[in-house]
């Protein structure tokens, strides 16, 4: 099992990764199947999913019935007993007869045969066209991609049934002809899926490695890329087979199919004509259709779920493993108190986080902790740095203070107080939105990491600066506009009018980050939480933004929590620093103490990894400054 987790984790991020290295086709996974462990876990999950089992059972039964139609059917599909029309079920005709005296059961079986074969033909044609075209377009791009995109655009914009009517008018009634045509028409769905998947892995490292090691394009496609698109194609095929059955039946229902063949569509049409005489004639073909298409839809969903669950379980396993390796030295947590008043003597802290624990409930009922027993405080006019690698819980801690944790997050322990009152009282499971919505924007604000994705692309920068001031401070739009322009000047934007009227996509990343900083201080907060405010920026811009933060912080005397993974930034800006690892607070103290004399091995490792090959310890602070600039 751990093997499978490893392999899956090493595979590409595409949804198909869990079946990455499988050797055999999708349906051939018996117990003796060698393949890989990864693939068999997907298949095993599929077999554990009750809906998946139901779907596979239905499809297997219908396929068997179709295959054995010549044996099982008591009559030929067109054998008509004119003396016995529209008969009720009896021992000879177990489902009765239609208006021409033909046996309903026999026709259903032969109909299944034709329906399934035509769906297979359609999917086959669509794959035969869409897959290679998608591979070529995705792998080589260029003109071929442009042309095929244009063709795809046309094909996708034509309603299937109208095209099939045209084909019928041109070629006469033929199930095969119409299914080939529909296969061509629907091939863009494979084309798009393949192209997207190929584009996403084309520049993956392992494909580069294969190219460098001299593999030909063909074998790269065959070995690396084909394996990525296989699972999405299986899911897509289930969906397309269903659509093909529906449209083929529709055509036959209109009386445009081959009259010599028994199909579910023809039977439905026949039943509808006799709906006043014998409505049950409608029931059987409709049921057969709904069962088959429904089973295909469910099967597609079940495969998708199996793949997605694989990703989830993989994630969880990795995190759980990491946690168990560090969870051993748990300090005794003080018992929860139910009092609403904060601990006396702590009121003067701007923010005080006490023994905070944040966790996420898991499918098996347990709670996975991402923040555990974290305590610190921030005072007015002070910058606290929270340092740690990604996944150390530093952002989760910051979002708990903001009250912006994801919906499924739980506060599992501890408390948070802001300016002398609780935002999370001891024993509360969630951050109180009622309390925080009054604080957010007005007293606590936030500077995000990635500037571009944190501005709404559909609104001007001015609008996004003005609205919070109007809502939070209750000032007029004109007043807010004046202040916004002033703020933009304050954050070092040369032409504030132009930026004010610009849409986010019209400014650079550095400027967008200045805009976000302007937004964060616009309502004169007491506390700013900055989550890696410089990580996404160019190095030269980073230094400017840090200078700006420091200048604003000193001028406005605000408290700042600066979340970062960069000790250079800490050395440059912070008064105190808290080091986090795996959701726990490792060490906390003044920047000078921690940088000069780190007590914990983890802090030492972090610092050593930063300063490798640099000057000796006495130069640490200036080396850190260089780090932030360089």
């Amino acid at each position, binding site marked *: 099992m751990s093997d499978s987790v490893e392999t899956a984790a090493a595979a590409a991020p595409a949804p198909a990764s869990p079946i990455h290295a499988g050797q055999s086709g999708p349906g051939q996974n018996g117990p003796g199947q060698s393949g890989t462990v990864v693939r068999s876990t997907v298949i095993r999950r599929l077999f554990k999913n009750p809906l998946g089992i139901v779907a596979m059972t239905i499809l297997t039964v219908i396929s068997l019935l179709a295959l054995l139609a010549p044996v099982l059917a008591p009559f030929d599909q067109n054998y008509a007993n004119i003396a016995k029309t529209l008969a009720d079920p009896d021992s000879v005709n177990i489902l009765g007869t239609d208006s021409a005296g033909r046996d309903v059961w026999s026709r259903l079986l032969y109909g299944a045969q034709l329906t399934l074969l035509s769906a297979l033909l359609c999917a086959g044609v669509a794959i035969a066209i869409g897959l290679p075209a998608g591979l070529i377009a995705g792998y080589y791009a260029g003109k071929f991609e442009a042309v095929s995109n244009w063709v795809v655009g046309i094909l996708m914009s034509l*309603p299937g049934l109208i095209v099939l*009517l045209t084909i019928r008018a041109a070629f006469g009634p033929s199930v095969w002809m119409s299914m080939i045509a529909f296969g061509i028409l629907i091939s863009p769905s494979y084309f798009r899926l393949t192209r997207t998947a190929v584009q996403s892995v084309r520049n993956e490292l392992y494909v580069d490695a294969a190219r460098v090691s001299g593999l030909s394009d063909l074998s790269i496609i065959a070995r690396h890329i084909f394996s990525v698109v296989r699972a999405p194609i299986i899911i897509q095929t289930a969906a397309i087979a269903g659509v093909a059955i529906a449209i083929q039946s529709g055509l036959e229902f209109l009386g445009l199919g081959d009259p010599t063949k028994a199909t579910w569509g023809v039977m439905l049409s026949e039943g509808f004509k006799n709906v006043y005489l014998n409505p049950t004639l409608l029931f059987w073909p409709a049921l057969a259709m709904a069962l088959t298409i429904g089973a295909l839809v469910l099967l597609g969903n079940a495969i998708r779920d199996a793949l997605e669950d694989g990703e989830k379980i993989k994630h969880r396993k990795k995190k759980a493993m990491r946690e168990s390796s560090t969870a051993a030295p748990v300090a005794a947590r003080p018992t929860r108190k139910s009092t609403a008043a904060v601990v006396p003597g702590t009121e003067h802290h701007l923010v005080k986080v006490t023994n905070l624990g944040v966790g996420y409930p898991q499918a098996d009922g347990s709670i996975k902790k991402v923040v555990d027993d974290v305590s610190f405080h921030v005072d007015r006019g002070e910058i606290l740095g929270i340092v740690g690698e990604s996944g150390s819980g530093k952002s989760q801690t910051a979002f708990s203070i903001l009250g912006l944790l994801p919906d499924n997050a739980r506060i599992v322990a501890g408390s948070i107080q802001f300016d002398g009152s609780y935002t999370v009282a001891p024993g509360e499971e969630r951050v109180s939105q009622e309390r925080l919505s009054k604080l957010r924007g007005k007293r606590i604000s936030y500077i995000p990491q990635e500037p571009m994705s944190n501005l709404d692309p559909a609104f001007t920068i001015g609008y996004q600066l003005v609205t919070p001031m109007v809502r939070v401070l209750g000032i007029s739009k004109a007043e807010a506009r004046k202040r916004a322009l002033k703020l933009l000047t304050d954050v070092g934007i040369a032409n504030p009018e132009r930026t004010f009227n610009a849409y986010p996509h019209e400014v650079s990343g550095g400027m967008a980050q200045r805009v976000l900083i302007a937004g964060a201080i616009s309502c004169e907060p007491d506390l700013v939480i900055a989550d890696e405010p410089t990580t996404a920026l160019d190095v030269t811009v980073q230094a400017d933004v840090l200078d700006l933060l420091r200048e604003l912080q000193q001028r406005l005397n605000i408290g700042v929590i600066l979340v970062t993974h960069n000790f250079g930034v800490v050395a440059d800006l912070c008064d105190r620093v808290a080091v986090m690892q795996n959701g726990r607070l490792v060490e906390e103290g003044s920047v000078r103490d921690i940088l000069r004399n780190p007590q914990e091995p983890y802090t030492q490792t972090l610092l050593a990894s930063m300063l490798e090959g640099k000057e000796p310890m006495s130069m640490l602070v200036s080396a850190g400054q260089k780090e932030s600039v360089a």
Partner: protein
Amino acid sequence: MIRFIAKRLGSGLVVLLVVSALTFFLLYMSSGSIARNILGDQASAEQVAMKEHELGLDEPLVARYLAWVGDALSGNLGASWFSSEPVANSLATRIPVTMTMVFAAMILIAICAALIGVAAAVKRGWVDRMVQVGAIIGDSVPGFVIGVILVTLLAIQLGLFPATSTISPDAGADAWVYSMALPVIALLINGVTGGAQQIRSAVIKQLERDYVRTLRSRGIGEREILFKHVLRSAAPAGLTVLSLQLIGMLGGVVIIEQIFALPGMGPLAVTATGQSDLPVVMGVVMYTVVVVIVVNLLVDILNGWLNPKVRVS
């Protein structure tokens, strides 16, 4: 914006030309002896040759296509080979019937799917589960089967609605709406189930965007975030979903009209197809392509209006 529309319109015309040429050549090259087909087996070779000459079938294919394009530009799409009725006339009497139904269904789909989809995305819980189950059922039962079931249960078994809807709007709005209710319902069920699910995913995707969190951190209320920011960003995806549904519905409505015996495009298309009445088939295809192009153009314009990035470039 005007250049943007002109460009879209131009590419739409190219598509129209390409599809008309493909359809024309496909139809006229593949279907065996058209004149023999029209006159029946009894006709003599002479009669067949005369008929071919009469229909202009003895001329080269390309010349015939160019002649067709020329006529089409002046509004003449030829006449049916069987009823001799001008194709343009048949289309003019039938398109309103079909389009009324399609647009009524589309408006209802847009409203219902948006309401349900947004509710499922925001509230989650049971609404969300209903939407998921509904989508599976909607995917499993083809629209025309739903139509057949509705007629059988509601019209024939229970007698709640008329089984056929040949009442014209002249008969009074009440009666007409009542008679059109069932076909429109049959047409919109799949659209609502599928649309709601896709709109739900689009809204959830937007709710998870970074800027939503930042808006919250700025003290903007949940309601304003949802209605002003999230829905606006999710709208292009929703529009695309709805436009694809409308295009698909042009096919679905053919079967629904057949089931409810409505005098729309459906019966015309089906009869023409069955008889290989090629001028009428050409006309049906052209009408379809024009509707598709207009819908796509409208969606492009709306998206340009919603998304400043498109509007500027």
